[in-house]
């Protein structure tokens, strides 16, 4: 492994960790936001350098391949933009006194630890390590969800914590089972947990063990992905935590869990006798899509609304990956990226909206395009994008998913389309209320940081019109890997 490239991977891990340490120690809390932004930026740069530098050969613990590089770059990018957004957001929270200076230090340190955990989960080559990393990220988010110390926040955090812990346990058992399945073939010891080793020998593993393992992993990590009926923690965690955390949860943490599921899907797909992961994932995907679509209608809290839409989209993505095949996988990847960008942009907008309106109740927010055009139109574009309308990126992925599905299994496409339509109706209904009509609620001009949300939306728009050839080739390659 060449020294340069190892540095890149190491940097991705050490910058957040170091930053966290600094933030904890940092006496001046005003600086924390700045440090946070800088650290995130550096991490992003390190991640980008992965493109130019040669990749390290898969090691004992770390691995960089085409699959996870997508996730890493996306992760660090959204992490960076979110840190920018959170700087302005947290400043306002400080003014209104919802947060205090010590909170602030804690918050930013946690933010970096979370980034560390997620990056570690992505680059880890060892399924045990991956498990640890995912749990680390989860626990940090639990702490941040509860940061407001309000009754609701604490309850949301508690719910998240308990359900999360059960998920952790199940995932761990799955991991152990995978080890047991691998051990006779690979031999005892560390090797039996190294993913790059497992994937080569997967064909000779015991299919029954592997199948049971996958079920536990699907449920364990699926809890984090927020698939129905394991989703219960997700809406409240999104609604009660600070908005940057909602953005990160929807935009990133779900992807982390999804990434884990994908890894094991590959493992299972490599073993012909084991149960096909496809049907399971398709079922869970459809369930989540339909369930979330219906749940969207009765929402009163704007952040919870978009949390449910995250569940819906995770359903679509899992469905796509479950369908498999070059088209569907391509669509799944694209949909995941687009959803991360769009959803975090929406949460950026929602955060500022909730701050200027002083409420999260949908019924008390009206006519945003009149009172705050900048935020209002950002919300409109975001919702239009998330609802899968052109010319924005999600349209392309939904186009591919639906059409390819209908061509292959017409009867699967019907519920899919149905769910999409139901969800669309709900989102549009709420959007009409929020963005149009006579303005209601706080009219104060907002000192928002428009750059993050509009840059996200611009990216989504560009991707809807034009995907650069190298990106496409790369996606297609990854789609090929995913089988």
């Amino acid at each position: 492994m060449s020294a340069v490239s190892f540095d890149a991977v190491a940097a991705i891990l050490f910058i957040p960790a170091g930053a966290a340490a600094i933030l904890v120690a940092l006496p001046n809390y005003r600086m924390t936001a700045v440090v946070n932004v800088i650290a995130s930026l550096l991490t992003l740069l390190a991640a980008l350098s992965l493109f130019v530098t040669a990749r390290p050969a898969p090691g004992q613990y770390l691995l960089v391949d085409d699959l996870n590089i997508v996730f890493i770059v996306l992760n660090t990018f959204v992490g960076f933009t979110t840190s920018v957004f959170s700087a302005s957001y947290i400043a306002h929270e400080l003014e209104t006194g919802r947060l205090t200076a010590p909170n602030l230090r804690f918050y930013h340190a946690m933010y970096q630890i979370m980034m560390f955990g997620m990056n570690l989960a992505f680059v880890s080559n060892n399924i045990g390590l991956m498990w640890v990393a995912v749990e680390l990220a989860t626990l940090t988010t639990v702490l941040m969800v509860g940061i407001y110390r309000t009754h609701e926040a604490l309850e949301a955090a508690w719910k998240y914590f308990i359900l999360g812990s059960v998920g952790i346990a199940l995932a761990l058992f799955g991991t152990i089972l995978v080890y047991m399945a691998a051990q006779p073939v690979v031999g005892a010891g560390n090797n039996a947990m190294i993913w790059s080793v497992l994937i080569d020998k997967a064909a000779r593993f015991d299919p029954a063990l592997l199948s049971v393992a996958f079920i536990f992993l699907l449920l364990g990590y699926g809890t984090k992905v927020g698939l129905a009926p394991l989703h219960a923690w997700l809406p409240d965690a999104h609604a009660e935590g600070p908005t940057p955390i909602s953005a990160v949860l929807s935009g990133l943490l779900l992807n982390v869990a999804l990434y884990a599921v994908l890894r094991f899907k590959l493992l299972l797909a490599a073993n012909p006798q084991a149960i096909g992961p496809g049907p399971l994932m398709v079922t869970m995907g459809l369930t989540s899509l339909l369930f979330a679509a219906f749940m969207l209608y009765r929402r009163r809290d704007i952040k919870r609304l978009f949390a449910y839409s995250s569940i819906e989209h995770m359903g679509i993505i899992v469905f796509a990956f479950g369908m498999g095949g070059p088209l569907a996988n391509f669509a799944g990847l694209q949909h995941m990226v687009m959803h991360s960008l769009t959803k975090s942009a929406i949460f950026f907008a929602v955060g500022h909206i909730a701050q200027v309106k002083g409420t999260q109740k949908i019924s008390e927010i009206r006519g945003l395009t009149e009172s705050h055009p900048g935020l209002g139109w950002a919300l409109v574009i975001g919702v239009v994008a998330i609802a899968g309308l052109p010319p924005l990126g999600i349209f392309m992925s939904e186009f591919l998913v639906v059409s390819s599905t209908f061509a292959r299994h017409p009867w699967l496409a019907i519920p899919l389309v149905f769910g999409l339509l139901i969800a669309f109706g709900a989102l549009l209904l709420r959007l009409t209320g929020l963005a149009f009509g006579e303005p209601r609620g706080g009219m104060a001009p907002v000192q928002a940081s428009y750059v993050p949300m509009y840059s996200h939306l611009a990216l989504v728009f560009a991707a809807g019109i034009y995907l650069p050839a190298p990106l496409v080739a790369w996606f297609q390659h990854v789609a090929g890997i995913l089988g």
Partner: protein
Amino acid sequence: MNSTVALLLCGPAALLGTAILAVAASRLVYATRLIYGAALVISAALLVTIAGHLAGSPGEVSAITLPLGLPWTGARFRLDGLSAFFLVVVNLGGAVTSLYALGYGRHESAPHRVLPFYPAFLAGMNLVVLADDAFSFLLSWEFMSLASWALVMAHHSDAANRRAGTIYLVMASFGTLALLLAFGLLAGPTGSYAFDTMRVAHPGRFAAGAVLGLMLLGAGSKAGLVPLHAWLPLAHPAAPSHVSALMSGIMTKVAVYGFIRVVFDLLGEPAWWSGIAVLLIGGVTAVLGILHALMEKDLKRLLAYSTIENIGVIFASLGLALAFKANAMPSVAALAFTAALFHVLNHSFFKSLLFFGAGAVLTATGERDMEKLGGLIHRLPVTSFVFLLGCVSISALPPFNGFASEWLAFQAILQSPELPHWGLKVIVPAVGGMLALAAALAVACFVKAFGITFLGRVRSPVVERAHEVDRWSLAAMAVLAAFCLLAGILPGFVIDGLSPVTLSLIGDRMPVQTAQPWLSIVPIAESRSSYNGLLVFVFITISASLAAFVIHRFASHALRRGPAWGCGFADAVPAAQYTAVSFAQPIRRVFGGFAFRARETVEMPAPGSLEPARLKVDMHDVAWEIFYQPITGAIDFATERLNHLQFLTIRRYLTLVFLYLVILLLVLALWP
């Protein structure tokens, strides 16, 4: 040879540029003139380009592939006869509308909500017509819907408009999903989304049927076929009038284009029965649409409903063409197809004209409710004249254009006995009856529209203050009226202009018309049937002027003004006139029963009491009650039930997880 299409693509690009410019400039004073002027110029330029192409080499195809859209397919664009024709329709409409908007737009209360989306809307329609692969087609299609939605939402402070916009966009995306499924079938699992690969790949019987049905759902929902029409009379009037004109006159035609492109072009040879569904739906749509229009008292909604009727006529003709094509009668199929396209053109003319008129009335009086208008013919002489011409054309009266196309459709229907299949034999004349009924009702409807709005005595003070609208608007309306007359008296040229399209899609064409003596049109043979708009026009003018001359030469010129005969009551109040509702009453008595489940209840005061008697009429939109309310009800029910899942205790959530785990494990245990 892709220069033409490349050139044409510059148009939409320029329009999009204008849209972006409008975002920046929309609050400036001269923004309105700037944007609409730009739109006018661009549409005109596009029109000229197309004209040049048609004049030079009508038949030939030019295509181009841009490295946009779906990576491995690319954004393909193609110009052939069909798209050329629809480009003419779109850009003619666009140009005239922009001209109208130059004046009308000044009265806009929220220009920053209209100006950016108007050029985008035009661009979207152009792109749909040019697109040559499923992705770009759907992208432009939905972009078009999105832009028009934004325009509908322009006056969003009115709750009704917001509702209209929401319903509109939901229906639009329903249609898009239907189209998406159709294209999915056509493209097959390999995902070959380019149209030219779809052309060569012929789907099986079932697939073809499914595609046809999905197209009826997808394109039909956009065009406003019953029962998918519910959004149309809400959304079209909600937009600013020039946009209503675009949506009603042009966008519905783009939907027709989508249907033709897929069903006639991509789907290959139709099955013999494929025409039946289209025919029936077309006929029913025509009758129900015009009946609804008759019951309306809101001028713009009346026009929207009559759009539904015309769409029905068009689809009925298309169904005929499909039936004849499927049964190897290309010449007649060409006749029916020509009728459909001709009617597309005509409707784009007079519907835009009428909406412009409605817009003029709106600016002059601020009223859309006919029952508050009346007597406008004295206040708005020019507007009322052109509006009258529009009414004559849409009522399919000779020598105007509406009659020419409907006459062709009837001629096609008369050829139906040659059809081999019983179903068609019986259905076609029935549909013919429906079309005749619709035509007759259209006359009634527009007698009402013009009579109540422009004639009679003034019903409310708003009319007193009304005065003629600006020159731009009048010019636009005059142009359209001229088109209506020209297309009516010289239909031969239009028909010959359409021949390349029919040749490419049907494989046959109508005989050359412009060579006929006296410029009359002869679908099959002169001995069978022929129509000469020019001659009729000349005859009527001559005999009318002759009569007038004779009268004024020999009869008395004396003329006296006096009060109208009030049956003994001196100057009855204007409220005593017939209103829109009372005018429709006889027809409501005849058709209302089954069409709207209309009920009239009379409340008589007690004998001797002096209260007025009351007549209450309640009508139902049957389609709405049968199709839409159950769906919304079901969704409401489901959400209510599911919503409890938001309020469970952690233990119950854990139970869910646990049960799910156990179920999965059981599945695994029972796995073979």
